[in-house]
């Protein structure tokens, strides 16, 4: 295994006609938890989407190395199969497709082998127990009629079932209820314990309270302006971003 699970070098990316990320560098060592903070419009969500390979954005320069492999040109599903995961603020709804069937298919796609029914069921039950979720969740149609909190829980549930190497959690939406925050924290904790690496994108810190953060990065205007340790989170909590946005 490479030392770094993720290495981003000189990344320039944006949407048609507008560059959002202007030469960004970022390294995450395997097993570490990183936090990306920054004011609104800094390009935080763009970074998450670009790492995952969203076709909405185009990369004009730079590279994304994942687990020692250059994935800059890989399609989204190939990246996912290699062990990347991106949580969605608004995961899409698929009526008629249960979450269980969806995940079964996702695992089969990744492993190329049929899913062992019994073991899969057991894992689902166990994960439900760990996250304190009602097992009926997984029988419901994927994200259909889920409340905001339920959707968030379902994304964390998928994270634990799919077991990626690096999870990018886009938590820029701070409107989470206490219950959902608890589930996310718990799920993230389990994921970490199992050796998963994390990039948490946020502008609030509620979710980070119970979490050991290894490194913190501050993103302003498409560039990382400050790297630091977990103390940087506290500093921003008190001082905000003003220090980094001026000038």
């Amino acid at each position, binding site marked *: 295994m490479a030392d770094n699970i993720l290495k981003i070098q000189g990344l320039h990316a944006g949407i048609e006609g507008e560059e959002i990320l202007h030469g960004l560098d970022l390294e995450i060592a395997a097993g570490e938890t990183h936090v990306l903070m920054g004011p609104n419009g800094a390009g935080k969500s763009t970074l998450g989407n670009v790492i995952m390979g969203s*076709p909405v954005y185009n990369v004009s320069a730079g590279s994304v190395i994942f687990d020692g492999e250059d994935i800059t040109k890989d399609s*989204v599903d190939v*990246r996912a199969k290699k062990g990347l995961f991106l949580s969605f603020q608004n995961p899409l709804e698929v009526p*008629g*497709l249960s979450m269980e*069937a*969806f995940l079964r298919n996702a695992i089969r796609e990744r492993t190329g082998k049929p899913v062992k029914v019994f073991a899969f069921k057991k894992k689902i039950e166990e994960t439900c127990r760990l996250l304190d979720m009602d097992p009926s969740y997984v029988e419901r149609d994927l994200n259909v009629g889920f409340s905001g909190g339920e959707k968030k829980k379902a994304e964390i549930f998928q994270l634990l079932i799919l077991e990626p190497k690096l999870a990018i959690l886009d938590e820029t939406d701070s409107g989470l209820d206490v219950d959902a925050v608890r589930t996310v924290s718990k799920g993230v904790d389990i994921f970490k314990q199992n050796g998963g690496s994390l990039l948490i994108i946020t502008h609030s810190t509620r979710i980070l309270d119970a979490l050991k953060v290894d490194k913190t990065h501050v993103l302003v205007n498409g560039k990382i302006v400050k790297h630091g340790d977990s103390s940087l989170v506290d500093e921003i909590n008190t001082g905000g971003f003003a220090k980094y946005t001026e000038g």
Partner: protein
Amino acid sequence: MSEIRVNPLSVLTWNKLNFNYAKMSVDEGLKAEDGPRENNLPGGVSFKGALDEAAYRNWLAENGIEYVSEAVVAGKFPMPDEQAFPTGMGAEADKLFLDNNVPAILYEVTESIERPLRFDYSYGDGDKVLENMIIHVRRGCSFTLILNISGETGSGCVGHSLKLYLEEDAKCTLVRLQMLPKSFMYFEDCGARLENRAELKYISLQLGSAKTYLGAFFDQWGYASKLWSGLGYIGLKDHFLDHNYVDCFRGKKTVGVMRFNGVLMENAVKVSRETLDFRQYCTGADGDEEEDLLVLGEDCVNKANPLILGEEEDVSGRHAVSVGRLSQDMLFYMQTRGIDEIKAQELMVRSRVMQLASQIPDDELKKNVERYLDRLYCDRVAECTAPCK
């Protein structure tokens, strides 16, 4: 072969668009479905006879059902097909049954029946069969009927006509599952009349014949009557599907929901007419219609004409269509979980069909639909190594 005009559009539009009706070719020498009608009926459902034209008229008269010259504001012409008991396919479909001397089999439901009743129709090569039924659900009774239409191999022509009369407070779930071989021509017609507070759930799944005509006319006369209708279909190579669904709101506070979940592949052709028709005095009526069509073939033809007709001010009507390939957002979401585009398409096809199939109150038939989808994807995905191949 003779040709008739079916599926008339409720209001005419430009002739050039070929929407105003469909031309349907039917075989000569069509025969009435035979076999015993009285057997195996549960208590509460009775066979009341095979009605010829005169007997049918008597039945209409007994129940006070008569042709009402349509309440049309001056200026709308021509009139919809004149039928005392309107159906989606229209008057010429009715006439086809008369011309072939196919009587209407009348069933009456006089008690609420918990267990779904299932009629199995299995067709073979060369079958040219018409089935004509009237289901009369008496006041306050609830009833579920599943029409399971299938066949193994061969070609043929099958047409089913169904008239549903739901008296006050009656509740009915009607499922039509068609899994005929590809070389069958199939048509199904439906007329439903809902009296006060009657409720109808109508599900039609079309997973087989390559030439399909579907009509449904839901006539909501009764106060606060409710309709939920779902049509699901998969159009494969060389498939043609033409349908005409009308929800006619006449009673006050009537509610109607129509859902159309379709998939078109390769060069499949689909023509759809979907009408919410709010008649005068249907105050408080609420109609909601949605078409969700996944188009996966380069040579597909998708024609749609979703009408909203309003004669009453105090109504709420909504129609929405979304048509296209798998959306980019959806694809991205699926891909982030490691599902590639081909698989994502398959999942979307399955989900569209299963949304409706999961509502069939019959586990065996649900399995049949799943098996159909499995087979479909085994045949379509070359690298598939599943044992069924």
